[in-house]
């Protein structure tokens, strides 16, 4: 180890941090684009405030919960303290060969908010703003770091004989968000008019260009999300991760294109966009383990799965306006499993460990998010009233419109 390599590694980690940051704009654009114009200010508001929440709560407690230090190795929960305190030699490779303490913190902090952003898409167009913000604070500030600690903080998932493997967070990040998205969408119930006696109604997203911008920005940021998870600038590993990430996204697009065309006989761009994301979520757990061919297969299956998942959740009347559950939960589970099926770690043993990880994380996230949402539902309420939903959340929660100069179609 030397100062040069340390500086390079740290530089890459900082660049990766910025790339993960811009993913929040990706989520904001995608979710705004796939919902209705009358709820656009609301969804943008949520996606703007969530990263702020993530950064602040992570500084206050999240980071210490997620990386409590070796004393808590193998355990379920730990806490290193409150707030940010600089350790000895925080800015030298004595701290870590890949990054300074501050780089470490900020890179992780950018990840944190992601979990809540995923949820905001699934509960869009009907959730009350206040309760959702409250949920986000708890979920990002406490639930996410606890789960993260289990694996990345050296917790019990990391110290199994055959450790659970999740390179950049198919489970630790995406499923964590996906489970809460599932719970939230279920407890809220569908948007008015989505499932009627006369059958299911389509509620088209109002701005496809924004949705497209969102997915490209997410893909763009994903190179930092996965590439940064190498935690150094090691040429071989990072470039391998770049290739698997790019290929999985591309084949995810084709998986969804083919599946949706066969199923619906139409070229549905929103499915292709979801497919790209599902491919990316899918490769996230094993981005450093796969070859080009394996990445292509994982992405393709991820993209295919998302189409069936969207249809499935609609069938069971769980209304997810942007497909967040299909992309992040289903895609995340698939990607986590794929580590046992393909690539350097493939093996029955590994599949088992992966299943354990999926299960415990699922149980914990389902339980905690249910607890938070359900207790709010029974008290302050989590859903806007009917009139507000019909008129739109923008005018009611924000007394504002997203597009005051444009005439609306209906």
């Amino acid at each position: 180890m030397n100062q040069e390599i340390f500086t390079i590694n740290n530089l890459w980690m900082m660049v990766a941090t910025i790339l993960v940051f811009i993913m929040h704009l990706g989520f904001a654009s995608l979710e705004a684009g796939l919902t209705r114009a009358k709820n656009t200010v609301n969804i943008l508001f949520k996606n703007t405030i969530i990263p702020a929440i993530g950064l602040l709560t992570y500084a206050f407690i999240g980071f210490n919960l997620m990386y409590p230090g070796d004393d808590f190795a193998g355990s379920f929960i730990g806490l290193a303290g409150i707030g940010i305190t600089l350790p000895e030699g925080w800015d030298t490779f004595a701290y870590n060969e890949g990054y300074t303490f501050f780089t470490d913190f900020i890179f992780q902090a950018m990840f944190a908010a992601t979990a809540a952003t995923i949820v905001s898409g699934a509960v869009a167009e009907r959730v009350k703003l206040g309760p959702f913000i409250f949920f986000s604070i708890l979920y990002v500030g406490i639930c996410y770091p606890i789960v993260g600690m289990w694996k990345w903080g050296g917790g019990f998932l990391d110290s199994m004989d055959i450790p659970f493997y999740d390179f950049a967070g198919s489970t630790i990040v995406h499923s964590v968000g996906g489970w809460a998205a599932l719970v939230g969408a279920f407890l809220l119930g569908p948007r008015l008019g989505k499932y009627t006696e006369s059958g299911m109604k389509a509620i088209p997203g109002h701005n496809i260009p924004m949705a497209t911008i969102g997915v490209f920005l997410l893909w763009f940021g994903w190179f930092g999300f996965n590439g940064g998870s190498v935690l150094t600038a090691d040429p071989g590993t990072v470039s391998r991760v770049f290739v698997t990430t790019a290929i999985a996204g591309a084949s995810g697009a084709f998986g969804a294109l083919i599946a949706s065309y066969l199923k619906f006989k139409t070229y549905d761009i929103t499915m292709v966009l979801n497919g790209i994301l599902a491919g990316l979520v899918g490769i996230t757990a094993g981005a450093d383990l796969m070859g080009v061919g394996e990445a292509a297969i994982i992405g393709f299956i991820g993209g295919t799965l998302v189409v069936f998942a969207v249809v499935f959740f609609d069938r069971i009347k769980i209304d997810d306006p942007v497909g967040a559950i299909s992309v992040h939960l289903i895609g995340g589970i698939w990607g986590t499993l794929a580590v046992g099926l393909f690539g350097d770690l493939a093996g029955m043993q590994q599949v088992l460990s992966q299943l354990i990880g999926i299960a415990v994380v699922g149980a914990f996230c389902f339980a905690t998010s249910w607890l938070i949402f359900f207790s709010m539902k029974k008290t302050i309420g989590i859903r806007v009233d009917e009139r507000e939903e019909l008129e739109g959340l923008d005018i009611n929660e924000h007394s504002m419109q997203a597009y005051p100069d444009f005439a609306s179609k209906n």
Partner: protein
Amino acid sequence: MKKIEAIIRTSKFEEIYTCVSGLGVKFLTFYEVKGMGMEHARQQTYRGVAYEPTYIPRTKLEIVTVEELVEPVIDCILKMGKTGEVGDGKIFIYEALEAYRIRNSDTGEIAL
């Protein structure tokens, strides 16, 4: 032949349409209009400045139909369009002299 124009709450269109089509009114035309009346629009705020759009978005319905159907159609609108709140709107009746179906140049009541 009469023309029925109704200014209704946009939210009431569905119900009214179902009702009138129940009467056998297969055709109607509608469009968005802006109304000034007793009802006031919800206040909005932008960067600390509160303001109130002067008008209320409403839907205007146009149905040209035969004498016999005028009463029933009006009843539909009165029944289905009513909330009892200020802002329910109005119905106006006019005389229509003639009607033509462009597709086949039918004229008179069969053109309706």
